[in-house]
């Protein structure tokens, strides 16, 4: 039973639909008013950096959820990629490969390796008709086991120092009236100056947002994306329309685990270590972000923009509460409530019907 | 019974064979695996998991899923521990304190399920979401009340009940009931074997009762009906909404049982870190036990078998000196196989 709202006041309707964005705005406003230094370059950039993990996992999850599936493995696939990248870097460094190359190969290797779990998930779901929940939960166990074995339970350390420099560096370093440098702080400046320096665009965030933007475009504008929505909306219709559903699903799950792998690589860059449990805590957060962003677990709806907003809502909440010195355990409660509210609102929000073009 | 039927039967009960196989293998690889001590150890440690999975079974049969059980368990464990601690500190008898702790815990355990059920049944919120919301809420509350670290200062009786046995056997020497024999030498203390843990008995009793409800009563029948085809169930005049709510209440009730039991076993209020992904393993057990996430299938017995597969794996790997991480790989693989096998073998048709 679809609730519908008929009329031409489309912008009004859209306004209502975009309540999540409003929610995010109000979050920013509130915390900026009552928080200390919340409304500041560093803080917002920290939030963006801290959000990268959820953002990347959520980006991948968005694709899967739109097809009506779910990917529980992203958390530990991320850990696996994190460990793999770290291991490669350490090994290459030991083989006295130049830092930069070692890091590059480490990241590339991990990203490639990260496609595998997705391939398996996709094959299980598409070819063997295993429910996504089960297939990806199986991968959840396998990925975690593998990564712990790879690093035998000790986070991998001793990576090239350049790693941390990249992972925690910014694109722009601007010292008002004194200096403007790229990728690294200007040399030989006083501690006092450092504090006044403005750092813009954290590398990690830049990498992530580029990937997210590209795939967001693919989802929204291309035939590939359109078919993902079709599959989520009515898989039989998609089949009858001649869409190679199986192939498509496999690709979708590969995208998901690619993003997870990217999350792992970013973690390695930020923390200069390879940890198997890198993304464990964020798996469900990413699902939450996607759903708050307007996707339905029944498939067919959802968007990258929505998932980004969902991610920011969670990240803002976390940082805001720390900024206020509030214990973050309340965060879990709030997020839980927001999640359910999001779905309720979505459900009781009417479908819009245009009377004419 | 025709050959195909036989094959089907074997295929559908593969988990029994598998469990048996595991035990055989581990009794070779694991030093001291095949022993009363180990058996009791497995029984004891798997009891809370059994309860968690049993509750999940009901929900999964309706075609839903309950992600909140893990943290509901944590929350209830913390709360019951706090009640016990404070009453004991106020000078009440330990047994009274424990009794109150259990009662309060179980009663509070009804609430999350009620909320989940109403959200799912009345407001049509997808079970995954509704219970994921509760997952966060329970987690947050548990952390608030536990301040993030275990609730200690419980009376010794807690641990004694949680880890007590009906029988104590000192091989060849003596045999006591309920009470540990006193005045043992060091050597004797090491050899003492407990048989039939209280915790397991409690768990089994609950499983039996609810297993009966599920398989023998109209209530249970309707749960399968809802899982099989909710519209048909509705048309057949089954009060689907009411029924679903009850099912989710049962699920979180079992989570509460599990929480209380873990308090008794660990003799602390265990906050939620450890509970994380417990719900996933409960679900894994249910599925390995032959249930389908599409609903309409599953049984308490199957779930119990599933749980034992998991805990035998854990203990077996441990005693065989295999890295614990291989267990995750094993679980993941078995889980997928369970579903694939289930699809391979046809329903049994009697002619």
């Amino acid at each position, binding site marked *: 039973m*679809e609730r*519908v709202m008929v009329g031409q006041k489309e912008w009004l309707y859209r306004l209502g639909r975009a309540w999540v964005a409003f929610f995010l705005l109000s979050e920013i406003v509130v915390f900026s008013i009552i928080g200390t230094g919340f409304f500041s370059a560093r803080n917002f950039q920290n939030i963006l950096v801290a959000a990268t993990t959820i953002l990347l996992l959520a980006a991948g999850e968005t694709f899967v959820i739109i097809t009506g599936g779910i990917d529980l493995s992203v958390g530990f696939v991320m850990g696996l990629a994190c460990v793999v990248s770290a291991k490669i870097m350490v090994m290459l460094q030991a083989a006295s490969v130049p830092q930069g190359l070692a890091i590059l190969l480490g990241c590339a290797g991990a990203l490639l390796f990260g496609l595998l779990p997705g391939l398996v998930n996709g094959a299980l779901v598409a070819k063997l008709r295993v429910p996504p929940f089960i297939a990806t939960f199986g991968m959840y166990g396998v990925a975690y086991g593998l990564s712990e074995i790879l690093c035998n339970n000790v986070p991998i350390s001793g990576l090239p120092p350049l790693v941390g420099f990249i992972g925690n560096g910014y694109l722009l370093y601007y010292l008002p009236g004194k200096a403007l440098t790229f990728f690294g702080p200007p040399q030989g400046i006083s501690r006092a100056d450092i504090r006044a320096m403005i750092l813009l665009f954290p590398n990690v965030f830049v990498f992530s947002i580029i990937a997210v933007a590209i795939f967001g475009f693919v989802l929204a*504008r*291309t*035939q590939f994306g*359109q*078919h993902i*929505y*079709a599959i*989520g*909306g*009515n898989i*039989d*219709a*998609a089949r*009858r*329309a*001649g*869409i190679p559903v199986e192939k498509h699903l496999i690709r979708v799950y590969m995208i998901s685990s690619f993003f997870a792998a990217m999350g792992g690589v970013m973690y390695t860059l930020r923390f200069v270590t390879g940890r198997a449990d890198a993304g464990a805590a964020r798996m469900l957060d990413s699902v939450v972000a996607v759903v708050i962003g307007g996707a339905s677990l029944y498939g*067919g*709806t959802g968007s990258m923009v929505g998932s980004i907003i969902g991610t920011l809502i969670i990240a803002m909440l976390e940082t805001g509460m720390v900024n206020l010195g509030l214990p973050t355990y309340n965060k879990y409660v709030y997020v839980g409530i927001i999640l359910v509210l999001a779905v309720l609102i979505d459900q009781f929000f009417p*479908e*819009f*019907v*245009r*009377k*004419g*073009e | 019974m025709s050959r195909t039927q036989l094959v089907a039967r074997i295929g559908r009960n593969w988990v029994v064979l598998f469990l048996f196989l595991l035990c055989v293998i581990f009794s070779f690889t694991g030093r001291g695996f095949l022993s009363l001590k180990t058996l009791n150890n497995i029984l004891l440690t798997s009891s809370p998991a059994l309860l968690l999975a049993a509750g999940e079974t009901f929900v999964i049969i309706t075609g839903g899923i309950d992600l909140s059980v893990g943290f509901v368990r944590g929350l209830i464990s913390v709360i019951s521990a706090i009640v016990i601690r404070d009453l004991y500190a106020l000078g009440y008898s330990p047994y009274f304190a424990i009794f109150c702790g259990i009662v309060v815990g179980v009663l509070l355990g009804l609430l999350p399920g009620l909320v989940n059920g109403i959200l799912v049944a009345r407001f049509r919120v997808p079970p995954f979401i509704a219970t994921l919301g509760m997952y966060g809420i329970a987690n947050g509350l548990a952390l608030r009340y536990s301040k993030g670290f275990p609730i200690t200062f419980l009376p010794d009786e807690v641990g004694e009940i949680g880890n007590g046995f009906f029988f104590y056997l000192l091989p060849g020497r003596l045999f006591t009931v309920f009470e540990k024999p006193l005045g043992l030498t060091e050597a004797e203390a090491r050899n003492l074997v407990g048989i039939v843990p209280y915790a397991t008995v409690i768990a089994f009793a609950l499983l039996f009762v609810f297993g009966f409800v599920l398989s023998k009563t109209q209530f249970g029948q309707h749960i399968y009906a809802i899982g099989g085809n909710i519209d048909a169930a509705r048309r057949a005049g089954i009060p689907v909404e009411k029924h679903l709510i009850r099912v989710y209440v049962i699920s979180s009730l079992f989570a509460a049982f599990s929480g209380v039991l873990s308090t008794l076993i660990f003799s602390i209020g265990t906050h939620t870190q450890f509970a994380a992904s417990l719900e996933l393993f409960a679900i894994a057990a249910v599925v390995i036990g032959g249930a389908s996430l599409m609903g309409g299938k599953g049984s308490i017995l199957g779930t119990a078998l599933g749980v034992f597969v998991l805990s035998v794996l854990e203990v077996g790997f441990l005693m065989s000196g295999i890295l614990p991480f291989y267990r995750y790989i094993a679980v993941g693989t078995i889980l997928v196989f369970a579903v694939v096998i289930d699809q391979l073998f046809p329903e049994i048709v009697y002619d």
Partner: protein
Amino acid sequence: MEGERRPLLEVRNIVKRFGGLVAVNRVSMEVYPGEVVGLLGDNGAGKSTLIKVISGVYRPDEGQIFFEGREVRITSPMDAIRLGIETIYQDLALAENLNVYSNIFLGRERLKKLFNLIPVLDHEYMMQESKKVLDRLGIEIPSLRNKIKTLSGGQRQSVAISRSIYWNAKLLIMDEPTAALGVTEQRKVLNLVKTLSAQGVAIIIISHQLYDVFQVAHRLVVLRRGEKVGERLTHETNPDEIVSLMVGAELVEGGRRG
């Protein structure tokens, strides 16, 4: 109208067995361009089996299928669609979460190059094209940007139909098109059927509602227990005769047209 032209579709002595029972037994029939054929029969008469054979869901055990004069093997629904045989199912294969024109172009989306480099969906084009075909068939839908889930059953059906027409289906198979529709909607669909046949599209229509079939069909083919028991021109017969054929109340001689 038949006779002088060669049939669009001709099936000869089709047999389809399921294990023991014979669902379709040596059934032959033909459909001419622009002709509406009503396929009638009681439940289990073999209507839908025959349909599924024609639309490639089942493969016949015996018999031949000719399309536009050439013998064809239809081994999958895709084959049928490629030939121009489209089946409008009751559950309408539409993606409810997508809008009208996206469904009409589903799987065959029109793309345009962004900065003549990246291929992206050409919404404007798809919308205009869809408008055209809908107008051609006299279908009214307020806005093609509305999602299918907001449309009525009849509207959905006409979208499904216009979709197949746009991809120039030559033969439409409609399985219970008027089932589960309001009266006005039913009328609309039947009018649409007339429009289609007027535009040269051949149609096989299955329906339990004799009244509907009599309204639109030129010719009626009656099946019973997998066999063809009769074939009549609509204007030469009446519901009673057809019913008696369906239920086999009386023996019918000379059923086949010579």
